[in-house]
């Protein structure tokens, strides 16, 4: 039991220190700590609408968190979730527009498959380059984020953008996922939808895949290096492509969840940094798929809380808090690994 608590200590302490420093910065800018916290917590966890918004913002973060976790468990660092999410969301919107005549459930399936395939293909580029040429996936996925943005911008403006906008038409209504407020009045007005349940199901699926299947086992062996994988008669290059395209597919689903559940069309910049926050989500979940939803919830609170505190301080303070949490987490984690501080565990 004590060991279990110690595992939780690093993420929780990092989050608390991050928020405490955020309160301090806000105070420097003239916002009373009490008022800052009241807005940050009260407007997120204090009402049905606020809590619904938190879950709504956590939904894509669950997917992008998983998009980082899956490749990481195979030994790869996917910084490309932002671009993969955009590519997946865009491909899905195109499917939803062109196939709008399909009956509801089939259209939904077509949309989800399109998002996963497109995001997966974008991730596979990094995987193939890594396997073939050894180009480091970190810098490659970062560059692919920029290429994705430029490519989508081009196709969107050339063929799909509505006049004077940077968005597409709406996708067929048959694919929309029901909003929570329709069934549960508690969440009235919030953006929460069935996409959240879909995200939880995918997280559970990833947990099973990684920990209970032979493919998951093979991926985890690869994390020990290509030589170990070859010794187990596995193909490192094939598994590399699988790991990174799997991450890309999950990020593609992040785009799908946002558009199917809330927005109903693709708009440039809709990812809003969710791909990068996914890295923080994965870290604080200690790269365990089952812990990703809880971690995404924390960053959902911060993301919604940023909008709440914006009336007294610039909302970027909350992004600074996310950065500080990252710094604190990796420092605490390194101390835990080295055994410097016994009350935390790696």
């Amino acid at each position, binding site marked *: 039991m004590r060991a279990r608590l110690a595992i939780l200590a690093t993420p929780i302490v990092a989050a608390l220190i991050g928020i405490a420093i955020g309160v301090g910065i806000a105070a420097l800018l003239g916002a009373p700590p009490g008022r800052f916290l009241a807005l940050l917590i009260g407007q997120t966890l204090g009402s049905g609408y606020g809590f619904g918004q938190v879950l709504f913002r956590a939904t894509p973060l669950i997917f992008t968190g998983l998009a980082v976790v899956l490749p990481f468990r195979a030994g790869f660092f996917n*910084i490309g979730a932002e671009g993969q999410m955009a590519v997946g969301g865009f491909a899905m919107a195109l499917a939803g527009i062109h196939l709008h005549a399909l009956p509801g459930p089939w259209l939904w399936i077509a949309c989800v498959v399109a998002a996963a395939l497109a995001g997966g293909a974008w991730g596979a580029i990094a995987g193939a380059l890594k396997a073939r040429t050894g180009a480091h996936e970190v810098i490659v996925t970062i560059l692919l984020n920029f290429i994705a943005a430029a490519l989508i911008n*081009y196709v969107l403006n050339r063929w799909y953008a509505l006049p004077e906008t940077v968005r597409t038409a709406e996708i067929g209504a048959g694919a929309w996922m029901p909003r929570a407020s329709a069934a549960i009045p508690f969440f009235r007005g919030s953006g929460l939808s069935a996409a959240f349940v879909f995200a939880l199901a995918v997280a559970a699926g990833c947990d099973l895949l990684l920990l209970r299947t032979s493919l998951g086992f093979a991926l985890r062996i690869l994390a020990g290096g290509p030589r170990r994988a070859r010794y187990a008669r596995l193909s490192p290059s094939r598994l590399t492509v699988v790991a990174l395209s799997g991450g890309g597919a999950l990020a593609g689903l992040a785009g799908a969840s946002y558009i199917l559940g809330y927005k109903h069309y693709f708009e440039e910049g809709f990812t809003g940094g969710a791909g990068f926050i996914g890295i923080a989500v994965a870290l604080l979940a200690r790269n365990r798929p089952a812990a990703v939803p809880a971690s995404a919830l924390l960053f959902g609170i911060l993301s919604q809380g940023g909008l709440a505190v914006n009336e007294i301080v610039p909302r970027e303070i909350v992004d600074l808090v996310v950065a500080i949490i990252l710094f604190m987490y990796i420092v605490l984690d390194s101390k835990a690994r080295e055994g410097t501080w016994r009350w935390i565990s790696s």
Partner: protein
Amino acid sequence: MDLILSFLAQIARIAVPYAMVAVGGCLSERSGVVNIGLEGILLNSAFGTAVGTITTGSSAFGILCGVMSGGATALLHALVTVRARADQIVSGLAVNLASVAGTRALLKVLYASASNSPRITETPLGALPGFSVLGPLGETIGQPLFLAAVGICVLAERGLLHSGAGLLVRAAGERPGALEASGYDVPRVRTLAVVAGGGIAGLGGAWLAFQQNSFTDGMSGGRGYIALAAMIAGKWRPGAAAAACIVFAAAEALQIRLAGRGLSTQFLNMIPYLVALAVLAGWVGRATPPAALGRPYRRGTEEA
């Protein structure tokens, strides 16, 4: 003739921030510390330059502020990765996230704007007299700030690859255990290299701010990442990395010219990143990074 000279001048102007970040990156990574945070360092130093120049009216002081901002941001990265031995890639990403958020928040606080600072009216010293024979090219490459950038590239190449201090930096990145066995302090060498690299990248940020005559939100625009690709293409050697930056800058200058001829701007925007990706994907052959790159060093834990 003037057309060619002004095209070359454009390449030179684009190459400066790339080269400064790439050279700064060489310093950091040859000492064993991966620095993805150079993107944020570039942004912070452009911000520091703009604020310093606008506040005091002195471009020289602004440049100093830019270099200091770059060095200070790099120091944060060094404290986290070298002293606390935390993950280098995550720290770099956190630096970038904090830089975007921090500069945006400060823009609002200092200038009540979400997007840009006021115009920078002070400009740094213009071209030295002897360069006027080169016309538009001379106006760019004759500027003391440009000459300083060239000087830094030369110094870094000589210093890192052919001097005693450079040997210590490279040893910290290749065989830190051996460096310590020779009586040197590995964390100190790494910290100094990372901070110096940040200061050099800061000069690139200063150049960027003066080029655009103001600070605009997110103005680093991925340049730091492209420069890191150039650093790898240059196999972690400052001179070769700077040369790769000139190639990337030429591709970008060409893109700007083509965009003026009716080709889709959005499509052309991909070019710098595609070129960087193509170069990384083995066109330059497999580059071998420093042996201890990315590995935190803890006293007495490594074989000499």
